[in-house]
């Protein structure tokens, strides 16, 4: 599916792209469908099964779209994390401010 980018370079993954927006739109929809679908399914309402199935599918789709990007963001960020943590400690202990 060419519309969805599945291979990310580190600098591309750091940008906010359409894949993020697809996840942002799908995510609340998934919650609504899973919540309403579950309760109606327990009551054996046919719409419950349809909504729940749609919710499960959209949840899978959302992860399929966003997961490669999240993996790249994570692997790149963890390389820099150690330095950032040291800086965080210096700030908390006022070391940077006091020189």
């Amino acid at each position, binding site marked *: 599916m060419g519309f969805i980018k599945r291979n990310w370079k580190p600098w591309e993954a750091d940008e906010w792209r359409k894949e993020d927006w697809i996840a942002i739109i799908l*995510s*609340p929809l*998934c919650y*609504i469908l899973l*919540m309403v679908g579950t309760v109606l399914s327990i009551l*054996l309402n046919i719409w419950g099964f349809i909504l729940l199935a749609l919710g499960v599918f959209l949840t899978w789709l959302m992860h399929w779209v966003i997961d490669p990007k999240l993996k790249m*963001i994570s692997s790149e960020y963890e390389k820099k994390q150690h330095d950032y943590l040291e800086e965080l400690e210096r700030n908390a202990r006022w*070391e940077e401010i006091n020189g």
Partner: protein
Amino acid sequence: MVQFQFLDWFWVVLFLMVTVGLGVAFYRLGKRSESDFFLAGRGLPWWLPASSVYATHTATDTPIWVTGVVYKYGIAGLWYTFFAAWCAISAFVSTRIFRRSLAYTQAEWNTIRFHGLGAEMLRGWISGWQVFMNMFILGWVGIAMGKVCNYLFGWELWIGLVLFSSLCAIYVLAAGYWGVIMADFQQGIIAFLMIIIVSVWGIMAAGGPSMIAEKLTSMGQAWRMNPFAFTGWFEGDFPVAWFITMMIIAVIGGFGMGTSIDWYVEAQRIQSAKSVRDASYSIWWGTALVLTRNSVWAAAILAFYVISPNIPTQAEYELGWFKLGFEYLPVGLIGFFFAALIAIHVSTIASHLNLGAMYFTRDLYLHYFKPTASEKELVWVGRIATLILLLGSFFYGLMMEDITSWLIFALWLMAAGIWLPNILQVVWWRFNAWGYLSAWIANLGLSWLVVWILPHWGVIPPLPDYQQFWLLMLLGALIFIPVTLLTKHEPMEHLVKYYVQARPIGWWGPVKREAQKLGLLTHVELKNGGAK
């Protein structure tokens, strides 16, 4: 009162031994450093903090609250619980941004996003408020357990409050967040299993799903099975206008930080995840479980309605789900059910004990009192703070009957007028510490005016809560937007540093261009053929 048999007590004692023992078993990991005591060393796979999100947000008072709204409004009442859906967008936006900041707490994040005196004032305020809030929530949840024990065994209220919170404190004091997260995992599983068992038992007691639908229809109550059964666009106590407001607060709130009171708890789970990806999934899946659990509860409450319709008093029907468990489960399972209630209870207590202690230790003690403190000392301060929170919660819990309405008002005013500033601080580079501080201060006064003083003097009519929200947001914006624009933005050097590390979403153009000019976003420069 419920009569326990030997098998019932066996389950309860076994559970307490396992849960306290499991927590204490992580003593050696918890005492290694401040990072271990409060964030489990930032190394957890997503499913552990996810189970903690779920367990923490399954408190003793949660089934009481969910039962109350579903019994009253049918399954449309589930929308009251949909405020948790702020995690839908947050999981992929503010969670990612917050995880990259690496801040232990939201108070610390303020000094990363903002700068100078304003940032420090915000850090001091948010940390003090969070220590208080966690103590208050501990008292609130604790006294709910006191009430459950009073209903079950006829115990005095203080016994249930003090006994189970104290048992829980043993493993929080010993192992800190390691104890919290490991106990939450097994407590989450036990609680979820029991919620399913009790709910299925209740549904079968009402004759099964088909019979529930039939009976509701014959009672003229079929609307209770409609998730969109509102009372009109603006009329009644459950209008569409409320629903739309709730959806906006919950869903759009995910772009911000602190738009829900739960954010502060989730922030700790976010930072304890081993990567940005793990943080995102922990928040998303933990909340998905919370919402589907509410659905299971809702179906059981409909069953309870069919069995016991037309209960006039809220205090009575709110206990409906508990009654399904204690009145319909067989001997042996009742004890297991009570053990699950203890699991539900202590998972919330443990989280708030450790969270409040983290704000005290990291933001108040380390940052303002003793910046030279050693790791060992910080772990001990964390333990002392945990103990103080525990004792404070007993005090709050026992006086809760008198102060609940005041403190719920305090919670509400914390939420309404600063909802938009909580988003702006994430998405708008120009929003500064003074704008954010002015929003907090203005909201304090405006809430009193809009909710109590102006209606009391007849200046405005008493407004439903969703209308109060919009009015407070508008009035607040008339103050914090001018304050922001009339004061300087944060120093560009500080903003660039934050931008490069956290990569926030929204309107950050000038900061991004400055970062490009400084060569800090080199890949983007290459792609665009040079900085603009």
